[in-house]
């Protein structure tokens, strides 16, 4: 309860344009949003991240809700920006899960370990490519944004039942693909 009232204080300060409030919001949510954008292979994820937060600033006056609602709303804005980008890309849209979109992970210094990691990453990419865009979206929102099924449903504009079905299909697909090519670290 105390945390919620702290959040409402933060929200109120952010509405007034307080620098400390927006710094706190940015630090809290930007890493997860950037991860979500990268996962979807956004072309300029850093720029898109800036767009997302500017949109949040502009629309905050219309937001009213709890901290969970705010988290959902942040990813809703991020999701919408992504959809806009895909629409702009149109037919030139490339398969957005590429090895290049992997975040730069520093090597551990152990060649064997690094090689195994690389294999695991490649396999993960191969499995991701087998999922439909909607399944990937559900997966990223569940895993990276830590949203519940109901919250994911709000973000993607579907019913919770539909999101659950997408999730089940995605997990089933992952299981099958992983069985074909097991790599153990």
């Amino acid at each position, binding site marked *: 309860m105390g945390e919620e009232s702290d959040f409402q204080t933060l929200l109120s300060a952010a509405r007034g344009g307080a620098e400390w409030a927006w710094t706190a919001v*940015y630090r809290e949510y930007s890493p997860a949003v950037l991860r979500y954008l990268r996962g979807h292979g956004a072309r300029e994820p850093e720029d898109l991240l800036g767009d997302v937060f500017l949109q949040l600033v502009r629309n905050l006056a219309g937001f009213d809700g709890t901290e969970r609602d705010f988290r959902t709303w942040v990813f809703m804005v991020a999701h919408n920006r992504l959809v806009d980008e895909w629409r702009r890309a149109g037919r030139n849209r490339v398969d957005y899960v590429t090895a290049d979109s992997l975040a730069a992970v520093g090597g551990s210094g152990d060649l064997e370990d690094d090689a195994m990691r690389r294999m695991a990453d490649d396999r993960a990419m191969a499995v991701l490519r087998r999922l439909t865009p909607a399944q990937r979206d559900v997966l990223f929102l569940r895993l990276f944004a830590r949203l519940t099924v109901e919250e994911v449903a709000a973000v993607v504009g579907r019913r919770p039942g539909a999101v659950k079905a997408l999730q089940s299909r995605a997990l089933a697909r992952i299981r099958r693909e992983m069985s074909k090519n097991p790599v153990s670290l």
Partner: protein
Amino acid sequence: MTGFGGYRDMRRFSNTDDARIERLFDGRVSADDDADLGQVAQFLRDLDRAYPEEQTGALEASHLPAMIEAARLSAGHSQSDISPAAGFRRPAFKNVSAHGRAIAAFALAALLAFGGAAYAGVLPAPLQHAVATAVQAVGIDLPNPGQADTSHVDRVPASKEPAVGNGAPASTGEVGSSQAATGTSSTSGTTGVNKGGQDLPSQSEAVTASKGRVTGANPSKKAGPRAKRRGVGARGKSSHHGKAPQ
């Protein structure tokens, strides 16, 4: 393509209870604990590692200033978006109003000063012209020596208006009256004048149309979009046939 195996897999995950799925996404399932979900858990760990949560400190320096500026602008707008706008409009309104008042005052003074003489049109021509022009600004028509022919044509519809406006729409009345002014037959009149005059909503526009008719500009004019929408052409003809001769 995936056959019944895929369907069975999907059923399996549909039937998996929510708590297990939540544990899976929280990273609390391992292959040892749950053979069924073990491989999926492995994949999610791979994915989690492949896309680690990055620190956004470097981006913060470029994103935050723009955000804070936008936030302050938004906050500023919400506090004062009424007063500046009102402050901006009011002088403009005042100016227009003062201008209008000056014209009205002059027209009233002219009318009071010359009254009946001006109405009768017996003032000296330059004075009559000046007074007529001045009071025209407030909608009063007086004989104006400067507009000899056309003013006559314009005034005819005005005098006919009461007769034509018998329950008919104002624009129809104007059409009829302007046609009467031209003195053309009803058939040729509807082709020429009606097309030009059908979508004329006010008397001043009707005057313009009449002038156009006199100079021969209007007959080539096509019916306006409003007239087309309302189908005034047909109505204009019938009402005209009945009323214009009066």
